[in-house]
């Protein structure tokens, strides 16, 4: 007998493909933000599925803070070549030349200049009217109410009082010139869904997600990887080898590792399901005072 029911993952997949196609059809100049993380990798796979056998009709864009883990950049360059993606890499040139970095300027200034400002600069430069992001609603409590189409004014600002009702699968794509939307096709995916999908689809991810002996330093209770010599000597000399992995990837000085034995997806899931700690708590930047997620969003951060 024929079966007319879908598994959770297949239903999520269909929902995301529908969203991605809808944006490609209704916006003039969309872009997919590619952070090199596991969620981005899933999102890009979904885009490839959406337009198969054609190519993805919009570019990917990586906002390079210049402080990403080296393995992330290697991974990015390898797959861009292999898959033939149309990838834009953008960074805040001015701030980079001034030597902005987390160790010298602090996480807040660094994040603002190298991530938020760099993103805004790129959006203005290329005049994108829709930007896909890989954020999920279950990542953090305050994301629970996030729309799939998140409306931004011409300054890329998110006005919490001016978000449109979103019903069924009918998305309102009407914007005025200069305005834009951020689109979150993975809104309804959970961390477990992402891992399951990566496993099911054999989606390549950056090796940093898997536990391995790595040199790390304990900085204010966060295990920070010694990724290059830009880390001040005073920290570097305290480095110890530990078996660690990363739950999220970002700028290496701002992303804490966790001690772990999980070197396969199965083991990661097992750890994840039995350790009660939400995913983003290993991101140092979230400990910044005042800079709540809402605040950052209003300023144009994803």
């Amino acid at each position: 007998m024929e079966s007319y029911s879908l598994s959770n993952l297949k239903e999520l997949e269909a929902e995301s493909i529908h969203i991605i196609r809808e944006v490609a059809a209704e916006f003039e100049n969309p872009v997919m933000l590619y952070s090199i993380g596991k969620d981005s990798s899933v999102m890009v796979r979904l885009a490839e599925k959406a337009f198969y056998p054609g190519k993805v009709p919009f570019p990917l864009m990586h906002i390079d803070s210049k402080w990403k883990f080296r393995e992330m950049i290697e991974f990015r360059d390898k797959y861009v070549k292999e898959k033939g993606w149309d990838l834009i890499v953008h960074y805040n040139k001015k701030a980079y030349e001034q030597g902005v970095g987390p160790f010298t300027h602090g996480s807040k200034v660094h994040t603002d200049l190298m991530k938020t400002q760099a993103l805004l600069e790129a959006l203005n430069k290329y005049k994108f009217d829709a930007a896909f992001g890989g954020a999920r609603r279950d990542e953090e409590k305050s994301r629970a109410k996030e729309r799939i189409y998140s409306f931004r004014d011409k300054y890329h600002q998110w006005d919490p009082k001016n978000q449109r009702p979103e019903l069924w699968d009918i998305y309102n794509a009407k914007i005025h010139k200069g305005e834009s939307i951020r689109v979150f096709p993975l809104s309804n995916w959970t961390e477990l869904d992402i891992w399951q999908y990566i496993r099911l689809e054999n989606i390549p991810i950056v090796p940093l997600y898997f536990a391995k002996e790595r040199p790390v330093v304990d900085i204010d209770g966060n295990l920070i990887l010694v990724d290059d010599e830009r880390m001040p000597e005073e920290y570097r000399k305290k480095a110890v080898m530990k078996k660690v992995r990363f739950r999220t990837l970002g700028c290496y000085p701002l992303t804490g590792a966790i001690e772990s034995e999980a070197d396969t997806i199965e083991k990661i899931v097992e750890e994840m399901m039995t350790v009660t700690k939400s995913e983003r708590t290993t991101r140092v930047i979230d400990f910044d005072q005042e800079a709540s997620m809402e605040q950052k969003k209003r300023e144009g951060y994803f």
Partner: protein
Amino acid sequence: MNIKEFLDQDQKKDLLRFLTAGSVDDGKSTLIGRLLFDSKKLYEDQLSALKRDSKRVGHAGEEIDYALLLDGLKAEREQGITIDVAYRYFSTAKRKFIIADTPGHEQYTRNMITGGSTANLAVILIDARKGVITQTRRHTFLVSLLGIKHVVLAVNKMDLVDYDEKVFNKIVEDYKEFVTQLDIPDINFIPLSALKGDNVVDVSDKMPWYHGKSLLEFLETVHVSSDRNFSDMRYPVQYVLRPTLDFRGFSAKVASGIIRKGDEVMVLPSRQKSKVKSIVTYDGDLDYAFPPQAVTVTLEDEIDVSRGDMLVHPDNPPTVSRHFEAMLVWMDEEKMDPLTQFYIKQTTHTTRAKVDHIDHKIDVNTLEKHDVDALQLNDIAKVVITTNEPLYFDPYKKNKATGAFILIDPVTHNTSAVGMITGEYKEGKLDLRITSEQKDKIHKGQGLISQDEYVKRYNQKGSTIWISGLHGSGKNELAFSLERKLFDLGATVITLDGKSTRMGLSRELDFSPADRAEHLRRIAHIAKLLNDQGIITICSFASNDENIRNQVAEIIGKDRFHLAYMDADIDYCKKNADDDLYERFEKGEISNIPGLDLEFQKPENAKLVMNPEDMQDNLQKVLDYLSENKIFPAG
């Protein structure tokens, strides 16, 4: 079972989306918090049981304020951030769940409608001490309006009524009596205590008289996949894929029914027929596809199909019509302006729509019907809508995917309203009520449509762009390219030029100054009539005489008359003219030619002066002018 087998099994589970509704303090946050927390515990237990050194974490004795688990949103609410719905995720070994958690405060209608639009099931909370109250009725009505087929009436705080069976039974009876008026096929009653955990995850021994499932068991096992419409095939084309010359695929999410390889299909609106050649996906071709799969279909024949079109089975088409009745929920802070020409989006099709008529508004508390003129935030009403292009739809009750739509305000672009189609509206049913005031107007030849209504409908102000210039100056070229451009931009526009009008309207007139004046008088009156009815008119006439131009402006109305002058001298025009008019004049065959034997009085008061050498720039100049003066677009 090892972790691998566990995951293999886990990835096969399905998804249930449900809505929770209750009034403030009924215990909604406590219940959701417990579901999230305890299901995580269940998972943990299961996983640690897989390990040899299983160390079970005990549940007993812990005092947790479950409601705190959800607190993320309270602070935001205080900052005035609108939260119409928050989505929560949890999972058991059997299913994944998405909870649409809708705040029960003032904006309950908008919130519940938003959260419920994607839900298969609704959990409606009741405080056992209060029983069925107004809010319960309101929530249930909204659930039935959204076509949610399964309801769980969760009778909470049973601990506060001594787990008394009689209290529960009374509530069940009251509810059943009320719910018969509404169309909800599957209703279930569960007595529970969210705080103590009775009948939430495990069946409680405090209520031995209850023989049903716990809430979680029920949610894990309720059968919802057959709720979708699998009988009426609707394939609303979303995206046309043309990666190579010989591949043309039509991508869509199957809205309803089953589409199969080899099926004969008809394209709406063209009604052309073809056969499904293949159903393509990244993971391989399929023999059939069902909702909500997102696939790409190729057809046997090369027929025209674009986004917004719909593939259907020829023997089972949807209704194709511009008029329908619907239940409309007003979502905008601004109240409805009945003149607005909204964008309507239904499936993948966007066109314009107007609310013709509000049949009645429904009071969500009493279900009584009221007459109203306009709708406000949270109002629900039965309305009649007319669209510019036909929609392909089914009644929402039969087919949610093709019966749902949103209305978008053309100026603010907000989603002003959402609707559920109840059926086609047969034309002629709308009664034509003509008041004596209106009769008066008709008598005076004024029409019943106001200037404002035209402006809203066409998004333009009825105006005349009058282009003056010598023969051969390129004014016609400008007129017609302007008409083309405005048309493409969505304006409603008509061009009048010498050739077209002299062949019929003014066929008896010659080119003498007197006849030229009469000709332009006629043109001016036509332009005025068109402008009166909201239409933009482009007039391209030499109009060499200053006096006559002023008379024309007088007839049309000075504020609607916009003079453009094509500033080309006679030598340029002689070179540029595409006929032999000037040669014939030289030979003495004709006379009365402006710029030669008739004086061409250069307009001093032209609003726009054009350089004939730069057509592209001229076009942009006019467009900028129209937009600056809010002639088009008016908004």
